[in-house]
């Protein structure tokens, strides 16, 4: 059927829906819904990890095989360092830049290595905003409780408390660097309400919050002349043979040579796993989101946490085919956009947490109330024209210019027509277990941002990721710099990798998978 004909039901039912209020699910209903429909509960997609720090715990098959994978580094590699520094930061997104800048400000000799360009990351795509409790009606404690509720009470309390309390200072730092957050008429920071939050708390820079922050941080890293190695992927960590991290092996992606970096401390800010396409899901993640940091730190003995839970963002584009996996910002739902099934009905409170909304969309589709595309995809409508009806003509264009542009390229005017969406793999809720200074179980190995775990529990609230990146980027940067100042450079060995290989043989789990994976293999080779 013609897409416009199918959309008619959304236009027809709009006025009736506007009068409706849908309650959020009670905790018991919410649990039942999630267990029945959320991808985290698809037993067949999971398997236990055979050996290593998390032996016996379950995770998705794609990740398990990477964690048990093999190093690309030859064990007889000459480990004479080409580079020496105090703090090696791996990753050039938000967490990496925040860590590098703060460590540098402490006088540490910092190197930042990244496998693509500085700034190519998920951070740059964050549209929804950054949660910080700045209003009089709100408080860090309320932010803490909202996050805990969203995370199914499984969040690490100490990590979370630190994040919400340091939020305001982070906002001040970003403002001082020139980040342009939206303002109210009185000059105060404008706040929006995000899904799963009891108070409006999202700081935004229109729908370009992540881009705005990333542009500024990138520029600042260059201004501070921090040593930068682009197109250089970390492929292994180095240890002193006694369990302390002492550097890393990078791979120059042009000439494929290995580069040995001696570093007193290492900060992994390597991001998430979307490009593993867990359970076949499309992803909103950037090209390099392949969980490199997880694989490398696991081999060194760092414990991982909550790695059985992932966030599927409720609104990934399903149509047109070219936009598959691209995000339709949550901001549209924040401003009142309805989710509508093929029968023209709403089926969930659109501002419930991401796991609940995603589960309910999957439920509608599994139970036959979805809209199919000929390429075999399925989804539900997001009523974007409703925003124009509610707030006046031009609203969509004014509030969501990036979104409008994205669809306009394919001849779709989202101010007039609803868009088709389905959950897309968005975020790794867990990661490497860290303490409140970002340090993992391995001494002098720090992890910041999406690669770390514990803070978000089993479901991350919208807008908490940007804050996590900045706060734990900063804290790991400060602590790594302090540690480097007081410590000395340890021996460089691959002994932990050898030990890991022995462990694999012992468990008959020797694998032919090379990890980290670095990039998905999309190029067609025959």
């Amino acid at each position, binding site marked *: *059927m013609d897409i416009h004909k199918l959309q008619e039901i959304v236009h027809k039912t709009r006025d009736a829906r506007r009068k409706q209020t849908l309650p959020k699910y009670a905790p018991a209903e919410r649990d039942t819904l999630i267990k029945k429909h959320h991808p985290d509960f698809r037993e067949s997609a999971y398997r236990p990890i055979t050996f290593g720090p998390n032996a016996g715990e379950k995770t998705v098959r794609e990740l398990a095989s990477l964690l048990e994978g093999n190093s690309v580094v030859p064990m007889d590699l000459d480990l004479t360092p080409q580079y020496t520094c105090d703090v090696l930061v791996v990753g050039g997104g938000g967490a990496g830049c925040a860590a590098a800048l703060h460590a540098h400000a402490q006088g540490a000799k910092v190197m930042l290595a990244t496998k693509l360009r500085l*700034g190519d990351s998920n951070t740059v795509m964050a549209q929804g905003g950054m949660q910080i409790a700045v209003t009089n009606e709100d408080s860090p404690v309320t932010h803490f409780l909202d996050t805990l509720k969203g995370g199914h009470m499984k969040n690490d309390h100490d990590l979370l408390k630190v994040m919400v309390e340091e939020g305001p200072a982070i906002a001040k730092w970003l403002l001082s660097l*020139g980040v342009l957050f939206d303002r109210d008429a009185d000059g105060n920071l404008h706040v929006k309400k995000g899904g799963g939050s009891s108070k409006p708390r999202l700081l935004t820079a229109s729908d*370009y919050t992540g881009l705005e922050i990333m542009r500024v941080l990138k520029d600042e890293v260059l201004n501070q002349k921090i040593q930068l190695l682009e197109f250089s992927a970390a492929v292994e960590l180095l240890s002193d043979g006694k369990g302390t991290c002492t550097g890393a092996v990078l791979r120059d992606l042009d000439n494929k040579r290995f580069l040995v970096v001696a570093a007193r401390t290492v900060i992994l800010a390597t991001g998430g796993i979307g490009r593993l396409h867990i359970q076949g899901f499309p992803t909103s993640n950037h090209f390099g989101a392949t969980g490199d940091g997880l694989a490398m730190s696991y081999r060194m003995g760092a414990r991982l946490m909550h790695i059985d839970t992932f966030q599927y963002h409720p609104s990934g584009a399903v149509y047109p*085919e070219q936009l598959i996996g691209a995000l339709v910002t949550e901001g549209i739902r924040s401003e009142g956009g309805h989710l509508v099934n093929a029968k023209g009905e709403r089926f969930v409170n659109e501002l419930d947490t991401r796991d609940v909304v995603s589960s309910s969309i999957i439920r509608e589709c599994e139970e036959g*109330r*979805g809209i*199919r595309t000929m390429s075999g995809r399925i989804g539900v409508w997001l009523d974007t024209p409703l925003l124009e009806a509610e707030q006046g003509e031009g609203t969509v264009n004014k509030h969501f210019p990036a979104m409008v542009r994205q669809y306009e390229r394919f001849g779709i005017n989202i101010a007039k027509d609803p868009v088709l969406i389905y959950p897309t793999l968005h975020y790794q809720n867990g990661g490497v277990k860290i303490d409140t200074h970002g340090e993992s179980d391995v001494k002098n190995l720090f992890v910041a941002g999406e690669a770390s775990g514990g803070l978000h529990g089993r479901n991350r609230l919208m807008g908490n990721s940007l804050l996590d990146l900045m706060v734990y980027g900063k804290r790991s940067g400060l602590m790594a710099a302090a540690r480097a100042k007081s410590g000395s450079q340890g021996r460089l060995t691959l002994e932990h990798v050898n030990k890991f290989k022995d462990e694999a043989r012992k468990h008959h789990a020797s694998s032919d998978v090379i990890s980290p994976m670095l990039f998905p293999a999309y190029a067609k080779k025959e």
Partner: protein
Amino acid sequence: MADTDTQNVIDQEEVLRPKMVTVEIAGKKYEVPEGVTVIKALWYAGQEVIRGIGCLGGFCGACATYYRTKDDPKVRTCLACQTAVQDGMTFTMVPPFPARKAIYNMVELKDPKQDLFTLYPEAPLCRNCNACTEACPQKIDVREGVWKAVFGDFKSVSEMFMDCVMCGLCVPVCIADIAPNLVALYASRVQGAHFTEKPERLEHRIKEIADGKYKDEWARVMKMNEQELAKVCAELK
């Protein structure tokens, strides 16, 4: 399966009649499926892309591309992850251009509007050719932005360039050797750091936290057991 499910199927040209089109990538012809993005066409042609790829969401500016459509002499620009291929299209990715980025200490600038002319002395030499504006895949009026920066209207610059993904396509076309995206980034940062009100409420909140305003509440919450916490959380609306 319910009736709704079988009725609600969108026709898609490219799936109903899978059609291959011919495109020319950096001088060599390939057959690729119609409607895929330029990046996907490169993958389909068997090319690994490491330089020229990033977020795949239209935000990072890594995949700046020149292209031309069939029989049209006009060379256009796009982001490869956001543009669909069509029959007869010719394209090539644009390597990074060696533009000069000025180095400055944002916090310590004393007269940032005047400093623009020391940091980017080429900025006022714009010859109004408008090539930068035509090159912008984000449809920013780049030329106008450069002039606004030169005349000190940094506020307008910051608003106009909020869409800028720093792809740099405005740079190689400039006959005055201006890097408009870098000029705009400087002006926007200055606008934020030097000419925007300090938000009072934020300062107030930072002080409250430092003064221990929430100490008692934290003590109460951090002592709660899981059940008590669940109850408090359930009460949040």
